[in-house]
């Protein structure tokens, strides 16, 4: 089993004909992902990488039965692409694009809230279910290895680090999800933790947060209320300098949350062992899984 993505997932790539879209679609195909179509408005009817290109997601869904999309379009058009995927009834949209204006994402989130579509990202590496040979996004293929660990992380590159380090010690993943580093995200840590809780093959979850926002604190609340599986935590940015703040609004909204120490404290209070380094994560995973 896995979460969000499995071997049955039929994937359409929005922005497939661009250079990033092309490169990563090739990688996804190599990994085994069922990529069934690309969408590039104005290029419908053509072929790319041996796959049909459509002018809209709706047309791609009708023709191919796609249920998932990966978004590789430029920042100015990305929020619209996400909404297009949701309006076409996709189950899951994975947005890799970074540098999307935050208010565009606020609107896209509001658009999604009325619909059944899940969003991963934006500004994220996507997700990978190694046991199903399926990935959407840019996680390097060689990093995936099937196994019992669920990985959820805000940082793309740290996701790769963690997967690689776990893999080197023989611990593969059910699914690894990079939820993204932007202020306004689709799935949160809590959302992904709940999915892992319900996945019978996931025995343990590695959760790698970073400073800023309070999604880690919220996840800690969820875990504190009784989470059925062990969680190994990690927070990066402990030595980062505090950001310069203008005005009071930020302080009013976030209060004391957002710092590395606030996050570590919240997770530890919820019974999560928080590792200091990636090596530490692997040790904790090893301890848990060898014990059970």
């Amino acid at each position: 089993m896995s979460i969000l993505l499995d071997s049955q997932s039929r994937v359409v790539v929005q922005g497939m004909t661009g250079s990033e879209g092309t490169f990563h679609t090739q990688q996804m195909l190599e990994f085994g992902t069922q990529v069934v179509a690309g969408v590039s408005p104005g290029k419908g009817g053509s072929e790319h990488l041996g796959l049909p290109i459509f002018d809209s997601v709706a047309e791609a869904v009708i023709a191919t039965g796609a249920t998932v999309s990966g978004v590789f379009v430029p920042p100015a058009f990305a929020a619209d692409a996400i909404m297009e995927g949701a309006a076409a009834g996709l189950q899951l949209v994975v947005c890799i694009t970074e540098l999307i204006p935050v208010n565009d994402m606020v609107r896209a989130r509001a658009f999604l809230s009325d619909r059944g579509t899940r969003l991963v990202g934006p500004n994220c590496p996507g997700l990978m279910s190694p046991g199903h040979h399926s990935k959407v996004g840019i996680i390097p293929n060689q990093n995936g290895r099937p196994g019992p660990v669920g990985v959820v992380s805000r940082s793309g590159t740290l996701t790769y680090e963690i997967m690689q380090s776990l893999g080197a010690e023989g611990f593969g993943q059910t699914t690894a999800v990079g939820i993204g580093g932007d202020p306004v995200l689709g799935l949160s840590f809590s959302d992904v933790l709940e999915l892992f809780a319900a996945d019978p093959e996931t025995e343990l979850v590695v959760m790698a947060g970073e400073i800023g926002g309070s999604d880690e604190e919220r996840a800690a609340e969820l875990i504190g209320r009784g989470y059925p599986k062990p969680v190994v935590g990690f927070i990066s940015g402990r030595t980062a300098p505090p950001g310069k703040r203008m005005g009071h609004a930020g302080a009013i909204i976030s209060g004391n949350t957002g710092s590395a120490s606030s996050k570590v404290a919240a997770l530890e209070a919820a019974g999560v062992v928080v590792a200091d380094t990636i090596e530490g994560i692997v040790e904790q995973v090893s301890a848990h899984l060898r014990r059970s």
Partner: protein
Amino acid sequence: MKLLEHQAKAQFRRAGIECPMGRVARSPEEAERACSELGPVVVKVQVPIGGRGKAGGVKVARSPEEARAVARELLAMEIRGYSVPAVLCEELLEIGQELYLGVTLDRDRRKLVVMLSFAGGMEIEEVAERTPERIAKLWPDPFSGPHPFEIRQLTLNALASARGAQVLTRAQLLSHLVPLVQRLYQLCQELDATLCEINPLVITKQGLVVAGDGKVEIDQNAEFRHHELARELGEDAAAASSGEDELEVEARRRQLTYVHLGGDIGVIGNGAGLVMNTLDLVKQQGGEPANFLDIGGGAKAEVVRNALEMVLLDPRVKGIFVNIFGGITRGDEVAKGLIEARDQLQITVPLVVRMTGTREEEGRLLLEAAGITPAVSAPAAARRVVEMVAEAGR
């Protein structure tokens, strides 16, 4: 893009939000003239930080002569590292009450939040901590914006914890605040701002509702939609940033995500999380990072070169740690940029590269051919750079 007070107020006025009459003065003479036009004025330094009053950057002048003297003093100040290129001279208000009104991004709710409190002014952060119920909040639907009835309820909620006598009746407050909040929210959306704040929102003894101060911060990711505004603000922005870290100013010019940290090990990586973790690793090994530099996803050789050049502009840098984990970024592109930069810039400080991920093999071969041995483990690479810098320093 942070707007200075007078820039923010120009936007407020355009949006139909009342501000005190004011003039920007870049010399004591201009301040003198402003005061003779406006009468008694408050003179405020124009730097992009909060707490200017506490730092002594806000003074009252009751005569043109006094305005000249006060402006001379303020223009010569340095406030938390910022020089003062200009002051804003504004008519003195007879303050009846000070409210707080702000629109900002609420990450948890994934929406803009409108915050209103009758406990405005300098102590609002304390109010937020001790009596958060005195700050009323509203999360409007981002497509519709705040409906009048929602703003009325926000006002009523804020009023419920107001203390002391009110200058305006409840009906007057409601009819003032409905259009004001609508305009501020719409301005925030139009400008792609992540912050539009009026603190204090002054109710004068005469019952006028006026923006006493103004803070606006525009989302960097949306600046491509606001080129004209950026140009308009250009001159002042350049002036205001004169107090900023010169390296950071240069990095902005080079469009690099760079934070100057003051140590001696330059750090370059791809992805904010990875770079933050690299800083942590350097610290754990006893080193001091000189900077944070994220080349982002999908960086090409040119960007890598640009980043290396940037890091080397810092004279304290004694060694460089490049940490690349390829996803959207490809190892071969990074390697090309590194080799090119090393050759052209004739880098003499130790350069430790750790590279893995997409096109790792291709990148590694390129680097090795050029005589740079890449590491695979990040902690090991961190240890190596810290040791090399320590040795070089001996």
